[in-house]
């Protein structure tokens, strides 16, 4: 059987099994095992590739970020962040929809997980929005859209996976994700202000109230400072920063703010211990799938096809990748997509002489967009279920919001200097800069 046929068979089987209801990890493994049966690759080699996919030090960060998110929500300390968001933007036209966006910008910097964000925001603000008369469809749409910020800003788990698999600086991806992440956040706020429901008008919070809300939320707000501060100063790797953040919650936040929750910590650990295994077993399976794609030269064939159209133009290459990832992201989740297509991404990054961090941020933003597009917009789907509205209605309400995402992705493609400005200032090595051997400062690629 020819290589394209084997690849086609693997893909069809994966999608067929996956959409039938087989877990993603097992669908991927089944597709790879059956595909490998038609090649010289042995089955023990496939099992080895599955193992190798998860045996990465960088991936160790994932359980800690998930643990931080689980502890933050389970210990119910998020109400303080809600109050802070309300004090900051509750008076602006759009009311609670503005609060949703600002809340997500805060919480994303603690959890790094879009699914955590959507569950927590739905829990914290879904009810109040309903009471204030926001349509359930709009509520689900804005919560889902705001939750995708977690895929971009640190400590994004998607960025951790991308960095670990693609050998790209995770700290660089974190920093470069800040501009597009906040662009989506502020874009959503502008959208809510102009086009969203007016909501209930509240008086502007007095400075004293804002200061009080900040003080109340100060302990949880230390988490992004620990995470970013530790990574940026070079004290910690992302994994270690995750551990320190978890210790901060366990030793300081929960005992200070919700002492009664301490006896429930064993349960939190058991649940977080289960949850972290789910993306990681999928990463292992996707690694074997991606390896087969590379082994059968599938990545090279697609890369050659893209470069035959786009040449070496980095913008055109990225636009085609965005198109490809938008289509793929509509059917498959971000993590397996990244791992399966990393050989292709690497080939095109080299072909277009694109900064790997820039390519990473553009693709992560695209995959975040895929979380609210049909037919498989996981985050929109979760939001619609949590809010209690039909997916099709939430989808219609989300359609105009797509402009914010498309604008951000286009901006990220065409203005790499803006996107890479922050990592260049903070961690120059992460974007390919090196120390000037004959003077102070760094020499950076153009």
């Amino acid at each position: 059987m020819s290589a394209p046929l084997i690849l086609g068979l693997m893909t069809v089987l994966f999608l067929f099994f996956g959409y039938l209801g087989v877990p993603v990890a097992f669908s991927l493994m089944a597709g790879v095992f059956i595909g490998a049966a038609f090649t010289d690759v042995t089955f023990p080699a496939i099992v080895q590739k599955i193992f190798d996919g998860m045996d990465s030090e960088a991936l160790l960060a994932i359980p800690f970020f998930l643990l931080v998110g689980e502890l933050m929500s389970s210990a119910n300390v998020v109400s303080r962040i809600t109050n802070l968001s309300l004090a900051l933007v509750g008076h602006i036209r759009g009311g609670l929809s503005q609060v949703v966006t600002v809340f997500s910008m805060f919480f994303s910097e603690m959890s790094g997980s879009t699914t955590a964000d959507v569950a927590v925001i739905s829990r914290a603000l879904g009810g109040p929005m309903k009471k204030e008369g926001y349509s359930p469809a709009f509520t689900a749409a804005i919560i889902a859209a705001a939750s995708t910020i977690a895929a971009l800003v640190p400590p994004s788990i998607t960025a951790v996976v991308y960095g670990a698999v693609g050998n790209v600086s995770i700290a660089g991806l974190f920093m470069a994700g800040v501009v597009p992440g906040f662009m989506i956040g502020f874009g959503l706020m502008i959208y809510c202000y102009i086009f969203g429901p007016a909501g209930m008008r509240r008086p502007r919070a007095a400075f004293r109230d804002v200061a009080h809300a900040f003080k109340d939320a100060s302990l949880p707000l230390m988490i992004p400072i620990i995470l970013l501060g530790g990574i940026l100063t070079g004290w910690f790797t992302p994994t270690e920063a995750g551990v320190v953040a978890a210790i901060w919650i366990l030793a300081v936040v929960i005992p200070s703010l919700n002492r009664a929750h301490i006896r429930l910590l064993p349960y939190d650990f058991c649940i977080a211990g289960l949850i972290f295994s789910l993306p990681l077993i999928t990463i292992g399976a996707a690694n074997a799938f991606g390896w087969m794609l590379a082994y059968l030269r599938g990545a090279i064939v697609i890369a050659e096809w893209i470069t035959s159209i786009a040449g070496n133009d980095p913008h055109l290459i990225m636009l085609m990748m965005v198109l490809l990832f938008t289509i793929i992201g509509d059917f498959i989740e971000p993590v397996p997509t990244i791992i399966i297509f990393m050989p292709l991404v690497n080939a095109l990054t080299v072909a277009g002489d694109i900064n790997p961090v820039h390519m990473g941020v553009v693709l992560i933003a695209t995959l975040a967009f895929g979380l609210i597009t049909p037919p498989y917009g996981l985050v929109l789907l979760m939001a619609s279920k949590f809010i209690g509205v039909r997916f099709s209605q939430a989808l219609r309400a989300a359609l105009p919001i797509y402009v914010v995402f498309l604008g951000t992705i286009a901006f990220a493609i065409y203005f790499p200097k803006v996107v890479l400005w922050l990592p260049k200032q903070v961690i120059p090595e992460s974007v390919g800069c090196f120390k000037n051997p004959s003077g102070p400062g760094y020499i950076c690629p153009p």
Partner: protein
Amino acid sequence: MRISEKLAKKLLLKRQRHLKWRAFDVLEITLMILCGVLLFGFSTTVMFDIVTREIGRPWLWLQEVTQTFFIYGIFIGAAVATRRNDHLYLTAVADALHGIPRLVAEIVIRLVVLGVAFCLIYFGYKNFLRGFSSFRMPSLTPIASLYAAIPIAGSLIALFTIEQLVNGCRKGFDHPEPQEDLLATTPILTVPSSVRRP
């Protein structure tokens, strides 16, 4: 009721009770506790790794212990998630079917998982045997100690899949579930089965 009993009761998932044998409930609870212990274990070893490095006396073996906890955590978690139906799903067309089509779809799903599980057992075992000739540094422990997680997880996945297959064929897969309050009962980072798109 003691805290440990309360914890055990809370850890046992009530969903899809008709597909489970009570005899395996203890195993599910044990594996869930093991997940927590492994996560706690590698959190602690990473913390000690940072501390000992910062004081200039690093314990090199800590990274090996961390890696062991991490790998076993993934495979044990994947195994118990099979019984709890907590895995990540693309969607579940089968959930929207009823009668014979549902039965056929559910059986196909379990057979696919079972096939993968047997591959993990057999070929994972082969890798395990091969792993005695490679060693982890600095302890010189055979890497087989890590590879053992694969056939162990494969066996547990196969066991839980057979459990679901037998119970599903006897009692039917299509069973009304008690209406759950999604926001109140779902651990926040998982996608509850009722959220999966039909």
